[in-house]
């Protein structure tokens, strides 16, 4: 069957498919290309007529690293980085802990707890945001980075399902063997299960690290004092596009966008492999 000579029908199909794919890729990349080329523009505001800048320059990047009263990109970047690191540690621990408990431990309230988690997950975060804000206010944590870390990671135990799905596929015989060797549950978790779970741990670490870089809503609500040095990248860049600022900062916004996107894209590409596995893994292997 394989050795058949290529017929013209097949050839036409192939050509059509490739043309289609290339067209789609081109359409999909237009905004990204625009982002990159505008960041190298010498003109500050929005250029209405030219897709490619008339005059190329690195000045936007230079401006980005010389903070002024509106924009302090280096500080925003560092703030986000700090929050992301803290968040990453807490979220990863919480997620793995809950996943291990629900997957390996046998206790009476396991099912009820999991059902409760399903119901809680139905309430979208935006809805309880008001109350979260007031709780942080009561604790004196609004306009602090600690507040942001708590908001991003405190309830992260609810996102345990993907990790649990992974743990569910780990052979139970391993745990039995460890138990026979006299290992405690805690030891089994740390020395047997964790080393086996590298893919899901990498996925959890990266995805929780990305949360503060991607989030916009919570940051905007909690860091509302207007002190721009405290902001994270997302609110800072959003602010650059304010009606009164857009004509002086649009190209800088693009430069900032490019700089943020580079590390995130790299992490994202590493993560996406596990993302697919996590979403579909359990069902496929079943």
């Amino acid at each position: 069957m394989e050795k058949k000579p290529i017929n013209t029908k097949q050839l036409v199909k192939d050509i059509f498919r490739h043309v289609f794919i290339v067209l789609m890729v081109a359409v999909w990349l237009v905004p990204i290309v625009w982002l990159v080329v505008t960041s190298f523009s010498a003109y500050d505001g929005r250029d209405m007529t030219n897709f490619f800048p008339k005059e190329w320059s690195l000045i936007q990047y230079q401006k980005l690293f010389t903070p002024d009263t509106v924009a302090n990109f280096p500080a925003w970047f560092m703030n986000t980085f700090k929050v992301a690191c803290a968040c990453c540690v807490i979220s990863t621990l919480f997620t793995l802990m809950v996943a291990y408990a629900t997957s390996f431990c046998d206790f009476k309230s396991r099912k009820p707890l999991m059902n409760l988690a399903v119901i809680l997950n139905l309430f979208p975060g935006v809805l309880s945001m008001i109350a979260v804000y007031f709780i942080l206010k009561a604790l004196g944590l609004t306009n602090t980075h600690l507040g942001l870390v708590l908001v991003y990671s405190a309830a992260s135990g609810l996102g345990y399902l993907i990790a649990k799905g992974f743990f569910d596929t780990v052979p139970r015989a391993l745990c039995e063997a460890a138990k026979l060797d006299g290992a405690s549950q805690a030891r089994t978790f740390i020395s047997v299960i964790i080393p086996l779970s590298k893919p899901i741990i990498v996925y959890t670490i990266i995805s929780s690290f990305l949360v503060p870089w991607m989030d916009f809503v919570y940051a905007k609500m909690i860091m509302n004092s207007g002190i721009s040095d405290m902001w994270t990248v997302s609110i800072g860049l959003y602010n650059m596009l304010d009606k009164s600022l857009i004509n002086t900062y649009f190209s800088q916004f693009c430069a900032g966008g490019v700089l943020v996107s580079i590390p995130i894209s790299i992490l994202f590409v590493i993560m996406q492999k596990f993302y697919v596995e996590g979403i579909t893994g359990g069902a496929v292997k079943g």
Partner: protein
Amino acid sequence: MKAATTSSEHITLERDLTSSGRFFTDLGTAITKGDLFVKLSILWWGAGYARRKQFFKAIAMTLLEAAVIWFTVAFAVQYVPKIGTLGTVQAEQVFNMETMKTEWNDYDDSFQILLFSVLSFVVWFAAVLVVLKNLVNVYQLQRREELGLHINTFKEDVSTYLNEKFHVTLLSLPVLGVVMFNVIPLFILILVAFTNYDQQHMPPTALFTWTGLTNFINLFGGGGLTLTFGYSFARVLVWTLVWAVFATFTTYFGGILLSLFLNNKRTKFAKLWRALFIVTIAVPQFVSLLLVRNFFADNGIFNGMLTSAATALGIIAEGTTLNFPWLTAPGWAHVMIIIINIWIGVPYQMLIATGVLTNLPVDQIESSRIDGASTSQTFRYITMPYVLFVTGPALVTDFVKNINNFNVIYLLTQDVYTTTNQALANSQATEVDLLVTWLFRLTQDYYNYKMASVIGIAVFIICAVFTLVAFNFMLSGDKEGVYN
């Protein structure tokens, strides 16, 4: 019988001891058959442990009890008694004769009363659970002593938290986090829906109070001045559902189609194409969406390029400009938002579909080909049912996610789209709002917490009903038991 139990007797005894499995049965036995110290444990939590010489545990429970009592006396009593009225003393500035200064009076803060009362109830609920569980535990100790079984030392008790009770160690902190940042906020959200908490009733300067079902009546078409709220709710709800359906299905089928094209064996450079699509979603949404919004702005580059092209082709006269309201007029904006969402969403779905397609049941496809099925038949009767089966549950969660897709709508339309519909404007909604973005604007810009809470509850009910219906469908695909 006492110290002379053999090991086999030991095991039978241990088995007798294992609880009936029903918490309340155990509790009943503990209360009826427990000795004085077990019963005393209701009042002094450490009593039962002290009697069995578990002194560390006794001290720990006593300290915990002291903490709860201190919390109640020093903190909760200030707020909980006022929960019925949510405060009566309005904030005022009064002249203090002693210090000769104008000072704030000792006013009530309705929101603090609400927040801290909820917190107190949660703490007390937990305390009651601790007391009941404690009763069962100390009765078990009593039984062990009666049967002459070994009673754990403190060190042994601690080590159970790394063994049989390891789940307690693992779950306590994450659960605490969820309670603080998820459960308590939800209770408050629900309670605020029954109050008049809005811009005219903003603590600390003003009080708010319970108003029963007024807000719900207003939202679901109650008469009077708030007539527009019912109208806006219906408009926004319809668009939310239309959006969720389109957003879910366009990206879902777009993703499958794209991954089919890319997965085709005869496609060259498939990896490169895939990587290029992934780049578009790797850029954070607040960057890409804000950029796209400027790309399609009224005086933005897309209109600019269209103008140049049209001028060059002689369709429009020199000097005139095209100003299509891509994101600023109803209709236009609705379509554009869905199209832009395809741009955002298809690569995601492509990733998932690729993962699913690489796991296709190859043998089935082989055999169907041998049976003489055409490519399209194989696709229709084997590939598609399989993909639907595997990704069906994800489709349900996607739909719920899209109902709450805050980012796309907010970043594309906030500060850009202004409504000309007076009725919508009166209730601070726009034609392109989803329920969640409307809710967000109500709280952030208009401090209308009462209506935002009602909308929040409505969103939850919609999502919950939808998920429950879909859940029955998903139940058949539940594979958890296979592994456990």
